[in-house]
């Protein structure tokens, strides 16, 4: 077992100019193509009447569940988060689940992919935090509860991003590798169970990744939100006293 077997990044299919196009990128394109085509086909004829096509129904259920989850975690309108969190979940889930297809190497089994996604989350936390609280408001968070906590806050920010990337990569890579190892040891029947378990793990990992991203974003945006809520509560309490 060498590095090439662990990471699909090392499998170079061809070079596009100076850039080596690895298996990870190719399979990512494949997943992207699949998702976009499927979405296009389904959403081309959307029905708003009583009867809706079953594929539209499926997509509506998925989107609705994601919106509900986002709303539950962030206590905010899911509008601006849906595209980011939803795409994370769908991309990871579809990539992981396609791992049961023979010959398909899930892009999420590459640490580069998971690192890329983690970087996206890291940046998104900044962007959403700044959108919601303003630049000063966002960066003031790192000084809480005291300015002495600043280094730890910064370390936490980076470490959790790293954890995101490594968690997903580890799980997916291990799933694929364990399947390969078990095939060598017990070639019949047992690998099927492992594949099924792999599907479950893949879905759970997608869920965990998306939920954690949302939690990070929510924690960056919620302070402002909570302050507003606290102010509101105080005002209400005052009113209550006055009325009392």
């Amino acid at each position: 077992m060498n590095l090439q077997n662990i990471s699909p990044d090392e499998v170079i299919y061809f070079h596009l100019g100076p850039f080596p196009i690895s298996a990870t990128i190719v399979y990512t394109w494949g997943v992207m193509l699949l998702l976009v085509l499927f979405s296009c086909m389904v959403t081309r004829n959307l029905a708003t009447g009583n009867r809706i096509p079953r594929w539209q129904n499926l997509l509506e259920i998925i989107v609705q569940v994601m919106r509900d989850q986002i709303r539950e975690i962030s206590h905010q309108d899911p509008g601006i988060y849906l595209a980011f969190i939803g795409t994370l979940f769908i991309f990871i889930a579809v990539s992981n689940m396609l791992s049961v297809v023979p010959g398909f190497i899930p892009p999420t089994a590459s640490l580069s992919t998971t690192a890329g996604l983690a970087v996206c989350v890291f940046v998104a936390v900044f962007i959403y935090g700044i959108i919601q609280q303003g630049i000063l408001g966002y960066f003031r968070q790192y000084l809480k509860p005291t300015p002495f906590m600043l280094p730890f806050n910064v370390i936490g920010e980076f470490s959790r991003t790293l954890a995101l990337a490594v968690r997903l990569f580890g799980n997916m890579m291990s799933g694929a590798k364990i399947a390969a190892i078990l095939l060598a040891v017990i070639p019949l029947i047992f690998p099927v169970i492992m594949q099924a378990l792999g599907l479950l793990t893949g879905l759970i990992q997608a869920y965990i990744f998306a939920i954690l991203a949302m939690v990070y974003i929510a924690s960056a945006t919620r302070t402002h939100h909570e302050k507003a809520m606290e102010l509101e509560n105080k005002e209400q309490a005052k009113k209550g006293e006055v009325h009392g």
Partner: protein
Amino acid sequence: MLINWFTVIAQIINFLILMVLLKIFLYDKIVKAIDEREKKIADRMEDAERKNQEAEERGKSLQEEKRRLEDKRKDMLEEAEHEADERRKKLIKDAREEVDHRQGEWREALRREKKSFLDNLRRMIAERTFSLAGRVLQDLADAELQERVADVFIKRIKGMEEDEKKQAAKAIRESGGRIVLQSSFDMDETGKRKITAALREELGDEVEVEYETDPELLLGVNLKFRGRKIAWSLEYYLEDIMEQASQLLEEQARKEPDKQSVQAKERQSEQQEQTSDSV
């Protein structure tokens, strides 16, 4: 090195592209569809609620109207029944009155007929008796009877009340003492003398008596002066008899209708019972 930095950047770009594409082709459209359908459902629910309310109101108003109509119908039916009842009663009453009236008329006609018949009979009997008696008396009249008549007349004059006598005398005096004495037969001289003497004795000396004969008197004497009359005649007796006979006949005639009316009443009551049964 597990991390290929070029791949990382490529994946980030890939991810961003995928995010944009999915936002365009999936999320926006699906969310829009969901919102639209939710709006539609909400609209429909609202519409249904409104319609339901309308239907409820309409149902209420219809029920109200139905109840009103039912009441009206009942009222009308009652009225009609009442009217019919009254009308029937009136018709029965009219019919009964009509029957009574007809019966009364018929009975009246019968009574009139009987009365006229009885009248005719009475008149005929009286006339017959009268003429028979007159003829018999005329046949029997002779000098002696005439004398007896004169005597009876004289007795009558003498039997007059004092007041009457005075009034008569006064009347005679005013008419110049002339009086006319009608008799049904030729008075002989003795009779004339006796009557004249009696008259002069009772009514005054200046009385002049003029004698006339009137066969229609049958048998009797009439004394006339200044419109007054003192008379004795068989006619009076006959008339008296006739009066009595007709009275008797009338009484009998009256009794018979009484019987008839009693029978009629019985019949009427029977009829009433029958009609009440049929009601």
